[in-house]
């Protein structure tokens, strides 16, 4: 995989992310909602002076092309503009909400891989055994159960009923967050040497990340199983076994490694989705993340926030896909030679 290839991939996806902001910008302006009416109170919305100041302040009195141009100019300076709903820099909003989602999604995808891949491999090796049925059954439940339902059931059972899970939120009530460096409580608390806050934050992350991981785990289990079954049926596996290669090496080096490419592709997309679309989990677990921020911005037609989030989600997909593509080279050397 050459450097030019990587640069070209980055360039194309950046252009696509920008194009997506244009599409979102246009769509948002053509739907029949007036952001001033969506934001201002009933009384203020009837006062022409307040309405005019509001439009001017948020640049809504300018032609559409000019509004978009201003957005691009700001973007070139690393400024995503100011959110109409939260009244502060979109970048500040994203800086606040992104770490919560990043921690949640990362733990969820790690859990999904840690459980999904071994389970899928076991199910493939022990095809049609009770273990296979169990793996297929649980993955089916994971895929089929609606996240909001699963989230609430998990919370009601482990927090409300068994009382072994901590309360919703990123930390216990009244617990001060660690001094902000990255915004990731796990990292920041460790950096500050504050193990109590680290434990507090990890405990609060566990249940929502398990819930968030459920669907992805199901999909990864099923894909791993299918991919492994396909690989285990290949001639080279039979040849390897015939040559007396140890079973561990057959499974891990020959079969699993070849089966991993579709799993990584799927995992990459799933991770990007987790980063941008965990609205229900964030709502039920009172997790102040990007999913809810994006949702609330869309509801009140907060143009700067919507455009900013589109760009961030686009970039997230870019980075994740790039990492996945690069990982192909590590898994399968033939990708580099192509």
């Amino acid at each position, binding site marked *: 995989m050459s450097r030019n290839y990587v640069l070209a991939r980055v360039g194309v996806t950046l252009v696509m992310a920008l194009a997506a902001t244009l599409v979102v910008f246009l769509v948002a302006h053509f739907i029949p*909602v007036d952001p001033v009416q*969506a934001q201002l109170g009933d009384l203020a919305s009837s006062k022409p002076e307040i309405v005019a100041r509001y439009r001017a302040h948020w640049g809504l009195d300018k032609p559409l092309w000019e509004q978009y141009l201003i957005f691009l100019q700001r973007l070139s300076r690393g400024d995503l503009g100011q959110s109409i709903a939260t009244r502060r820099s979109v970048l500040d909003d994203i800086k606040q909400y992104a770490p919560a989602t990043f921690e949640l999604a990362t733990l969820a995808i790690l859990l999904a891989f840690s459980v999904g891949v071994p389970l899928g491999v076991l199910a493939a090796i022990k095809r049609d055994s009770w273990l296979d049925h169990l793996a297929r059954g649980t993955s089916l439940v994971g895929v089929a159960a609606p996240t909001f339902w699963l989230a609430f059931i998990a919370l009601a059972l482990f927090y409300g009923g068994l009382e072994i899970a901590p309360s919703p939120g990123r930390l216990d009530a009244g617990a001060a967050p660690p001094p902000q460096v990255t915004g990731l409580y796990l990292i920041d608390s460790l950096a500050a040497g504050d193990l109590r806050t680290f434990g507090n934050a990890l405990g609060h992350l566990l249940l929502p990340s398990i819930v968030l991981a459920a669907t992805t785990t199901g999909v990864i289990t099923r894909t791993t199983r299918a991919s492994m079954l396909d690989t285990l049926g290949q001639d080279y596996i039979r040849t390897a076994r015939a040559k007396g290669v140890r079973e561990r090496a057959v499974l891990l080096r020959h079969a699993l490694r070849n089966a991993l490419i579709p799993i990584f592709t799927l995992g990459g997309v799933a991770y990007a989705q987790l980063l941008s679309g965990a609205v229900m989990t964030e709502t039920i677990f009172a997790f102040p993340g990007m999913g809810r921020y994006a949702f609330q911005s869309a509801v009140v037609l907060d143009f700067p926030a919507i455009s900013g989030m589109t760009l961030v989600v686009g970039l997230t997909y870019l980075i994740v896909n790039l990492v996945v593509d690069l990982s192909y080279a590590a898994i399968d050397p033939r990708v580099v030679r192509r």
Partner: protein
Amino acid sequence: MNRGDGIQRLRVAALILGVASALLFTAWGGGHAIAGAKTILILGTDISDTNSLDPQRQFVYSAPITEHAVYETLVTMTPGNYKDVKPLLATRWETVDNGGALVFHLRPNVKFVTGNPLTADDVKFTFERLKYLKDDASALAENIARVDVIDPLTVKVTLDDKTQPLLPFLIAPNFGIVDSKVVREQGGLSTPDADKNDKATTYLDQRSVGTGPYTLARWSRSTEIELVRNPNYWRQPGAFERVLIRHIPDSATQVLQLKRGDIDAALNLTFDQLNALGGTPAISIVKGQSLDFMYIAFTSSPALSPPLSNKLARQALMYAIDYDGIIKGLIGGDAIRPASFIPVGLGGSTTDLTREFGYRQDLEKARALLSQAGYPNGFSFDLSYGSGADVGGVSYEVVAQKVQADLARVKIQANLKPMEQGNLRTAFRKGDLAATITFWNPDAMDPSLWADPTVQRVAKRVRWEPDPSIVSLVKQANGEPNTQKRDGLYVQFQKLLSDQANLCVLFQPMYSHAIRDSITGYQLTAAGWQADLYDVKPR
């Protein structure tokens, strides 16, 4: 190593993962429940709409409970009594210049949390800053022409239009007095260019500079607001060392947290959840009459709906609706209903008046009116409402379905049109909808804030051109100094508005919060800040 070893290792890995998860739960699972501690009050509520804690800028639903605890106004109102204005930072006041101005005498020896004394300069700065920020809340100060400092403890507020009242507006947390010295230091302005050059909001979003019993220690957006006791408070200090307002957007999660004792009060529960909590040990439901209501706005525009442009047809609709069924069946009786567009509790509006001239279900009368209107076989129209939202614990959708079923009994077909809220608000405010189920809640506590819009901006939304006599009746009522006479004029106005049949008030709900028995003194108010946290004490 054989094939079995590989499987064994995978099993071991899965086992380790399971054990690690279990350990994590047991190690940190219990959390540190601090609600119920006598030094900390914890409220669970949805604060996602809080976008500023600058008292002169915030204008959303969830912020005032915080603002009222950290800032104080010149005057206030007590829960349940929305007629009598009570002293707070002003001990007394008088009307001067033939009703064109009010002079307020400030309470002596009051200090801000900053340690600076409260003076008339602070009042002048606060009121002028609110006016000149030209933000959402500035509409409340529109009638203030000028503010003059008479002496350090006396301030004169001159009105633009002396027929419009001022006192009931001044109870709003947006008139919370700030320490002008500190706000100026932080870039705050009270001059006409404040809308462009005021820089104090960033500071005021993290620190409060008021005279209230508590002070803002920390606001983490969509997470938590932390208040601590104000050491300089002029009355008995606040009962709690800290108050935490936790963001819990999901009401079912609020129920779980309340039951676990992790919060002392849950503020956003639905009617069903409140019902289910009835009889739960250590939990009680606190109720308070609101001044909000859900209503249907029917257009007068023949272009939008020829039948609805006919007053008799609109009256027929209003006689066909089963109001008691909505109140008893959909919200468990936790609501009342005013006769017209002034809520019970203000402007002489009572439930007796509703019985006297308000609409009630009378299907025979509805059918007779339909025949008179030229629609003996009924008609159809589009009924719009916001999807995914509720009022008083009942969704617009459920109410719309009930209204649809009621109207079908007199052969009127309501075509239900759920719309996204922003979309609905835009179309409704432009007057583009035939019939809309929507909601009214007050910006301040004066009946003029209900009566005025009905002949002005709301009239435009239903394409009604009110007769000049009605407009002048409203103006006369707004400016009438004698309360009894004023109430009489508003009743007269309500009768005319009711006959016009553009605005059909369905119900005026109760507010309901669920609290634990760890606290006492928790009372709900309709005045705009949900509850006064100063009154809440540990049990």
